[in-house]
């Protein structure tokens, strides 16, 4: 299955070893090989292209089991590959919820059968995502789960979150508790950022304070317990400030942001475009700038897609009845290049770090996000940083709900390789 190829003349960007130069990379038997293996290998001219460790998405909704009409593990991982990803963390809000080992095994088996990207199921913190009792985390850790999250809502009480963080320290491996940080009582029935735009549109708001309160609470608990906390999809300037300060104080916290929060603001919602409805909501231009600065200075470790596929008819509804979220796997790299790298907000190596190295470290995905050294698994992405394209449906994903539809992006995936086998070649999924 795996090819023997030599990738010639690509700019190799590998933040782990600090590499950023033009060289040839040889792949043989699913691994990166030394130059001696280049004889007789297929030659790929990659001049002008960038070769980097395959991207790792810390936050995707693959919808299977339960919501296969939106996405399946197979279609979701094919979309991931199309976007340059070789590993994806699959969120726990499946039906039934990923709150026990059987679902963990099922999701991973579906991914293995598809063979398009490695999938790391995220376990629920609480049984049924109900926010009442802790799920059986130990069983899921044994099944390989390293990240737990009740994504979609915050763990409702400080006590429950504290117990989750403390309980998770029992395991011999580092286990991360990932929080969707929004105070539930302040966002109830809210559909967008609360501010001048929501007031004018007559849409109930989700105030920035809801995130700030939850982030402050979660950081206080992480500080008090020494637990390992990850904050999902930050959206406000003050939350970035809180995380920045907590990190200097030694709190064990990492944080992520989505490509859409780095791109859009609440002003973009004036057309009631349901594709721009998100939780947490798109915020103000000031917040967007703070998020970009947070990525630049490393306060925000990870850029994750929050890939949230929905059926066409679900998004083609009234704004307050439409489910939140956008797909993102196929556009994440191009958005980061367009919004952050090309304008000079962050260097390319930082982008690869945020999209591959840092999320792989949090997921404990040892085969991903690593150095491109001989002997390492050949999980790679090859992309043209300057190729310009316009986002249009259809997508490789089963869903079409992309917030980026109609936008022109600069940067396009040419090939993705999972353990030496092309999942994407010539810019198209191989199967």
């Amino acid at each position, binding site marked *: 299955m795996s090819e023997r190829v030599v990738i010639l003349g690509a700019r190799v960007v590998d933040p782990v070893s600090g590499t950023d130069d033009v060289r040839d990379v040889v792949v043989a038997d699913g691994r990166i090989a030394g130059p001696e293996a280049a004889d007789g290998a297929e030659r790929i001219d990659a001049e002008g292209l960038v070769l980097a460790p395959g991207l790792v998405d810390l936050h995707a909704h693959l919808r299977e089991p339960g919501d296969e009409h939106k996405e399946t593990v197979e279609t979701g991982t094919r979309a991931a590959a199309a976007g340059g990803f070789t590993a994806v963390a699959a969120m726990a809000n499946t039906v039934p919820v990923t709150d026990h080992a059987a679902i963990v095994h099922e999701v991973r088996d579906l991914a293995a059968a598809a063979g398009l990207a490695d999938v790391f199921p995220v376990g629920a913190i609480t049984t049924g995502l109900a926010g009442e009792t802790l799920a059986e985390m130990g069983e899921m850790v044994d099944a390989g789960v390293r990240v737990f999250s009740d994504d979609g809502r915050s763990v409702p009480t400080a006590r429950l979150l504290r117990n989750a963080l403390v309980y998770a320290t029992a395991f011999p491996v580092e286990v991360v508790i990932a929080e969707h940080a929004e105070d539930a009582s302040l966002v109830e029935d809210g559909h967008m950022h609360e501010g001048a735009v929501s007031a004018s549109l007559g*849409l*109930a708001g989700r105030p920035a304070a809801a995130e700030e309160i939850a982030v402050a609470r979660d950081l206080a608990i992480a500080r008090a317990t020494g637990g390992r906390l990850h904050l999902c999809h930050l959206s406000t300037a003050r939350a970035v400030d809180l995380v920045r300060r907590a990190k200097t104080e030694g709190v064990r916290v990492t944080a992520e942001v989505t490509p859409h929060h780095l791109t859009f603001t609440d002003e973009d919602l004036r057309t009631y475009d349901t594709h721009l409805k998100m939780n947490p909501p798109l915020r103000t231009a000031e917040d967007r700038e703070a998020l970009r600065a947070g990525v630049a200075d490393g306060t925000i470790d990870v850029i994750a897609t929050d890939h949230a596929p929905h059926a066409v008819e679900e998004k083609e509804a009234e704004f*307050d009845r439409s489910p939140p979220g956008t797909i993102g796997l196929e556009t994440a790299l191009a958005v980061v290049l367009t919004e952050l790298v090309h304008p000079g907000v962050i260097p390319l190596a930082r982008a690869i770090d945020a999209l591959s190295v840092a999320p792989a470290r949090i997921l404990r995905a040892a085969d991903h996000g690593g150095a491109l050294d001989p002997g390492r698994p050949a999980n790679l992405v090859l992309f043209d940083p300057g190729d310009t394209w316009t986002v249009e449906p259809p997508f490789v994903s089963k869903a079409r709900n992309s917030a980026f539809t109609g936008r022109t992006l600069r940067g396009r995936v040419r090939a993705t390789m999972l353990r030496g086998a092309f999942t994407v070649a010539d810019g198209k999924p191989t199967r």
Partner: protein
Amino acid sequence: MNDHLLSMHDLTAADVVRILDTAESFREVGTRVIKKVPALRGRTVVNLFLENSTRTRISFELAAKRLSADVINFSASGSSVAKGESLKDTALTLQAMGADAIVIRHSSSGSPLQLTRWVDAHVLNAGDGTHEHPTQALLDLYTMREKLGHLEGLRVAIVGDVLHSRVARSLSVGLVTMGADVTLVGPPTLIPPDAPGWGVHVSYDIDGVIPKLDVVYVLRVQRERQRLEYFPSVREYARLFGLSRRRAAMLPEHALIMHPGPMNRGVEIDSDVADQPASVIEEQVTNGIAVRMALLFLLLGGRREDAA
């Protein structure tokens, strides 16, 4: 005028004057024995009322009928919508039936704008969620202009649950467009935090505002809001913000008392205040028909000579 009437933001001061002047010419039709002109003969107007409303639907129905349009009433209960049909599919069905105008009332903010993406018909917003209710604002402007002679410089207070009021949003925009001086009054929990950005004043002291007003516009306060902790009790609301007899007596003699209905007598307005001569609440209803005739006529491009 645009193809649709979705928001008072869509209208310039000149547009508003044209609508009010046209309404004035139609008011007389309502006083005839045969209350009908052939202006929209052969045109089809659909009343798509997906949220319960009696007065606005009847007002639009009468307006369309007095212009000789064919009127179809489509409401949520007992229709395909109750069977789970989406707004888009409903819209496409109405489109296929040849609707020239769709008057939509819906509990979701923004749904009239979404409708314009799916149909060719002219769309009139008859109230969308907590967003806007432009025809109500226009009939209120009509009533103020008729009673007080002008709109520019009028001092108007809008009192009550501004946060959840589509009427307050549309009326504020319309009044500001026409150069009036608007003050929003209510408990701070029910005033949008960014309201000063609308070009209006905000006050929490109704007694300080009332003596200087030309119009006090009282909004309906839903008891539901108390459960959601916006104010402690209906009793306290009435005491702090209700238009009591004492407060009504503080109004200048020429000032109008207005309410979009339906009223909660004893909550936001005392029963005998609602019935006193300064109150023009019944006239608001009558004027509503003329204003809606004007809007249908202007949007559907009815022939002026048929309007006589």
